[in-house]
């Protein structure tokens, strides 16, 4: 058990190291120059000076060797554009992204669970077909478009919720709903399929033959057995949802990491992009590590195979 955790942590660190190096190199290889971004119509001399100030006049590997030790001591560097430590930018913006991510995950998962179970129980009836149709429709709508439509309807037409910026948690409702849609549809289909599979498994039938009630079979047998694929899927959804957050924050002008990262990429604010990607990747790695470790708690087969606990 302990071994597994250590292994997962090492794997996670390896992934993050790769992410750091790849981002570092790729950012500097793609065309575009942060110095030019700061002084767009500046003279070549002014641009050179800014570049030197940013340390970008050195070869990439030298920059990398200077960056890594700093990173190890927790220094994420300085944002060229924000003129502030990257760490501060992250501290200021991460809460919005995490709030958005978690509320969307919770919303999407809860909705997906409820409707997925209903669809499975009512499999092949009009209820199921309606739910599946809704899921397909939702899934095929581009998130950006959904966001725009919601703003038009809820904010502009009805005047119910604000569309831009952030002042109170109410500003999170629309974006969270938008981010939750892909989660909702994925969870719905996953839960529906797995619960249906679970219900048609021999052990569910055997339980029925022992006089166990439908509802017990539904949760204790069918759903319990779909938990692992379900949780695995949530792990995958974290990545997708982080991506959606990045996109959606800009639409709603939610001042989170997503909006920062888009700007930072546009501006070639290397350190900021680097820091934000590191944090986003770490979030993804961490959640997935937790999920992997949780398998062994959830599944006796894995637990026994690992011979612990």
């Amino acid at each position, binding site marked *: 058990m302990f071994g597994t955790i250590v292994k997962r942590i090492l794997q996670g660190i390896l992934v993050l190291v790769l992410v750091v190096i790849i981002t570092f190199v790729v950012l500097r290889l*793609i065309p575009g*120059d942060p110095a030019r971004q700061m002084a767009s119509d500046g003279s070549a001399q002014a641009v050179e000076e800014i570049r030197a100030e940013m340390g970008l006049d050195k070869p990439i590997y030298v920059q990398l060797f200077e960056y890594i030790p700093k990173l190890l001591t927790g220094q994420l560097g300085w944002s060229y*554009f924000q003129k502030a430590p990257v760490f501060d930018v992250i501290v200021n913006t991460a809460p919005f992204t995490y*709030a958005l991510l978690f509320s969307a995950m919770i919303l999407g998962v809860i909705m997906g669970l409820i409707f997925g179970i209903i669809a499975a129980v009512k499999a092949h009836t009009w209820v199921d077909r309606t739910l599946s149709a809704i899921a397909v429709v939702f899934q095929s709508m581009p998130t950006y478009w959904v966001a725009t439509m919601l703003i038009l309807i809820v904010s502009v037409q009805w005047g119910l919720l604000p*569309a831009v910026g952030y*002042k109170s948690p109410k500003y999170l409702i629309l974006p969270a709903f938008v981010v939750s849609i892909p989660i909702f549809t994925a969870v719905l289909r996953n839960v529906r399929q797995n619960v249906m599979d679970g219900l048609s498994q021999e052990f569910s039938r055997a339980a029925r033959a022992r006089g166990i009630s439908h509802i017990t079979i539904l949760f204790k047998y069918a759903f319990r057995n779909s938990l692992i694929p379900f949780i695995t899927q949530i792990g995958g959804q974290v990545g997708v949802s982080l991506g959606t957050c990045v996109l959606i924050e800009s639409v709603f002008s939610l001042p989170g990491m997503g909006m920062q990262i888009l700007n930072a990429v*546009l501006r070639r604010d290397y350190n900021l992009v680097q820091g934000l990607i590191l944090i986003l990747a770490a979030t993804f790695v961490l959640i997935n590590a937790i999920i992997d470790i949780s398998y062994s708690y959830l599944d006796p087969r894995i637990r026994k195979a690992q011979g612990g606990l």
Partner: protein
Amino acid sequence: MRMKKKLALLLAVVMLLSISLACAPKVPDSQKETGTEDSKQGSTPDKGKDTLVVLSAGAFAGGWDPTSHSILANKHLEHVLYTKILYPTDSGELVPGLCYEWETHDDGSATMKIREGVTFHDGSVCDAEDVKYTIENYSEKSKPSASNFREQLKCDIIDPYTVKVYPSSGEPFAEMMALLAGTPVFSSERTSEQYTNEGPMGTGPYKFVKFENECVYLEAYDGYWDTEKAPSIKYVEYKYVPDAATRLAALQSGEAHIIERIEIEHIDLIEKDANCKYVEVVSGECQMLICKWPREIMKNDNLRLALAYALDREGAVDAILGGHASVAKGFVAPSFVAYADAKGLPTYNPEKAKEKLAEAGYPNGEGLPPITFTTSVGMYAKTKECGEYFVQNWKDVGINVTFNPVETATWEELLYSDEERAGEIVHTGWSPSMPDAGVPINAHYANRGRCNFVEDPELTALIQKQSRVTDPEERLKVWSEEVYPYLASKCYNIPLWVSHHLYGYSANIEGFVLDSLSFCNFNEISFK
């Protein structure tokens, strides 16, 4: 055992919920739900409201030192935070700013009288010391703010409210005063750390309160010197909203009063909405095609002219930009000091283009080496569609051009690059905040042109010549009879059109005026 499990589950759920609630970012009370929150002002007038909400299309850069950037969003902000030395008008004149009287001398220097009784937002007095500090720092070669200054300016203090400005080289140049128009006066005592930690500080009608969550909060400054134009709206929230559709939605829902850069497709929607209006202003931004001189093929005068004659600019403006641009008749925007139509500027003429192509040595395009045309996606309106249109224009006369639309940062690098990878032609727009023809023409064509890298001693000499002529009328003559016709005969860069600013605003505000440089005086706006 079972009990424990359920408890654990419950705990997990509670934890998740509380994490996400705890994550819900806290907002200080002072800022909560002020002004235009509780929206739908569309139907309820803003009477009694005290916050003007403006949505910026560009992001604000931190740091706030006016010399440290050339970023448009920050310049918009500086317009209301600072008083500029002089102000340009859209008819190409300069009017008083912090300097209320000035006199230019034959040696290229100028004496400026500075207003008395002007205070910075921290209460300190603004005098000649600050003006000297501003001018010398702002024009210092290594500073991004100096990008349009031909050279470093120097300043002597004559008395506490009089200064003498002169070019450091001693060589006079005519656009010096225009460069000062547009220079915001900042305090000689404010350090770079103060800018970073406390934000910008000037003598303008609004003072900076804070920058938070991509929004700049401003408050009216009681001590603004121009009492006639003292702000009527107490607070301004200047918010960065990258998405054009979202900006429009915020305007329509009443969450915002002014939105920058509406899209051409959105004009219809605004016209249908009784609560919204839009304003269209001919900007100071002249869009053009840069011909990269270092490419051997682009040194062929006739080829450049062939390229220019082949372009159907009217067609592109009508078909793609819906008429929301003015086809260029000269090399800068008409609102600039020393503007005149350029005589002999090629207009759409495919026959002539073919002729020139043959003269260039490539009849019907035979033997023409490959030409690449780069444009940005997302920087200016509909660049990609226009680019495709041009490529077709060129193809029609026998010039095959490879189209290369790229993302903005890549484009910007290619724009300023003389390397092979920059290709032959790059589309750009140019809008200095100092509206004197000398500024962009000098930057683009004198010595080594900034983007096209053209080296034409004759042209450089002409540009030098005009800048030595201090008398405005005589200077204009040099421009219209010598510089512009020469430029037109060479077409080192091919002018396309002058873009229009399209801003949306709420029907509930009045006094909203946008100038050609996209500056707007929030202090002159009031709620109906």
